[in-house]
């Protein structure tokens, strides 16, 4: 009897833990063709945390994000969103819970920036009174206020990327999966995007990045993918160290102190 009660308590505690975690992976395996990218990944992502995914080219960052978004099935293991297996969610409910910024946003035909951003309101149906206001708000925060009426195809790569980020946020999903959000951004807009993303206290974030210092600034947690199955996950302070990053990218990386308490991760020149 005691055993049964303690088992019940354990199950209840586990269910509670699962409900708390936005995303929970157990033994997740990802493949690309013959290559084994990620093996046995255990991950718990809690609300409000900001995870950064780092790894060399082809390590499986985009594949992982697409899998977490439910757009692709895992090649093994378990993946739960709010405690429920990801494949059990239907597309529309899923869209209310998570948004994904893919690595190349497609704008196949002429459309205004505003209409493009408003595609993210699909899940809210035809009678969506707030859509325009929300879309304009996010466009303004990512320095695209002046582009609202422009044709998306007339924008530069960097501008299109920020429009895509605004689109992802206009979906108003609590979980954001961002594949290289600062791609094509000049230094000012890189800082702007990272600061805006870092300021989203009511969202949970998982973003892949190549810029180590942007990663360090944004992350509360980090996941390193080797691309050969290996991975390291944990609080940013424990994971984003010069040693681990040097090993991950197979290139010497130094942590320099540039001001009291401010660290700079620098790739050592080869010669």
């Amino acid at each position, binding site marked *: 009897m005691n055993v049964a009660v303690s088992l019940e308590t354990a199950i209840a505690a586990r269910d509670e833990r699962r409900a708390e975690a936005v995303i929970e992976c157990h033994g997740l395996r990802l493949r690309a063709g013959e290559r084994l990218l990620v093996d046995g990944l255990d991950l718990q992502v809690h609300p409000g945390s900001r995870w950064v995914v780092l790894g060399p080219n082809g390590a499986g960052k985009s594949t992982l994000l697409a899998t977490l978004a439910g*757009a692709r099935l895992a090649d093994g293991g378990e993946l739960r969103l709010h405690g429920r297996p990801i494949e059990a969610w239907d597309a529309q409910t899923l869209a209310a819970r998570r948004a994904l910024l893919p690595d190349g946003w497609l704008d196949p035909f002429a459309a205004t920036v505003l209409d493009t951003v408003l595609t993210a309101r699909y899940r809210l149906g035809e009678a969506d009174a707030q859509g325009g206001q929300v879309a304009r708000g996010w466009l303004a925060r990512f320095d695209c206020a002046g582009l609202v009426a422009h044709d998306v195809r007339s924008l530069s790569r960097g501008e299109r990327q920020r429009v895509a980020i605004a689109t992802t946020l206009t979906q108003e999903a609590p979980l954001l999966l961002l594949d290289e959000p600062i791609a094509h951004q000049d230094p000012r807009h890189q800082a702007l995007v990272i600061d805006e993303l870092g300021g989203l206290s009511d969202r949970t974030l998982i973003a892949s990045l190549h810029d180590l210092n942007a990663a360090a600034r944004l992350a509360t947690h980090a996941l390193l993918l080797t691309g050969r199955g290996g991975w390291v996950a944990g609080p940013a302070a424990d994971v984003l160290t010069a040693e681990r990053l040097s090993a991950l990218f197979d290139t010497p990386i130094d942590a320099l102190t540039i001001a009291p308490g401010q660290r700079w991760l620098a790739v050592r020149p080869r010669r």
Partner: protein
Amino acid sequence: MPMASPRRVLPVLALVALASLALALATGSVPGVLPALFDPAGDAASLAAVLWQLRLPRAISAFAAGGLLALAGSLLQALLRNPLADAYVLGVSGGAAVGAMLALLAGTGLLGMQLGSALGAFATLAALFLLARRAFFGRLHGAARVAEEASTGVLLTGVMLAAFSAAVLSLLLALAPDAQMRSIMFWLLGDLAGATDLRAALLALAFLVVLLAAAATQARPLNLLLRGDLQAFVQGVDVRRVRRRLVLVSALATATAVTLAGAVGFVGFVAPHLMRRLVGNDQRLLLPASVLAGAALVLVADTIARTAVAPLQLPVGVLTALIGVPVFISLVRRL
């Protein structure tokens, strides 16, 4: 872009389609039949017969066939994200022709031929999407790149199926008795001379309305699907369900149209292209606009077909191509 007032395009197109209908009813070797429309049992009984038994069924058939072909064409172009797609290019019309020919050679009458063409259309679309099934309906949404490859795969498969049906048709033509050659040729080119059954025409028209309504319920998700599978799925579109429904709608539309009017070409291709220039890419407007444009095009083409060299009648498919091809080339040149 010529998208100044897209919402005003639909009423204008509806008027154009109605005017084409009036023209089709009023034009022919017997003049002044139009008043009989409001007086079916009046003293002008022979005029009423011309109108109710000849021109009205034929005009409604032309309207329905044009609308259905344009609907199927715009859906296939949107689903495959490729402006080249239509029932003709994808081999569906060819498959229907093979079905009709086989029925004809087997000695069945008109009904058997129509049944054969419907079966042929369905069989070809089924073969098409079965062959390209994994790419088109797979659970693996993956990168958007994959979806682009999928539509190219479906399109290439369709072009090959069209070539195959063309070969089978040539074979059947070589084997067919000379006496049947002329009716076969007309059917292959698309012909409305056999459309004299008012009830069948009205049934096809009802079918057009139902299929357009069914497609219209999927217009919003289709708008997102046009931007890529991955984006559409992320934003909440059940990609596979929308695809399955719309493929079914376009198969039913093609089969009905081919059953009614034979293998009429270019309508399903040209009408959506013309309308895209006018109203843009919003499927909520584009689908009804294409249907009206396709209906008007076939109506006008058929009116010319039966009056241009009267008392001889031309196959309507020849006229749609004769009108459609120059229009289309002038469009492409301006792209």
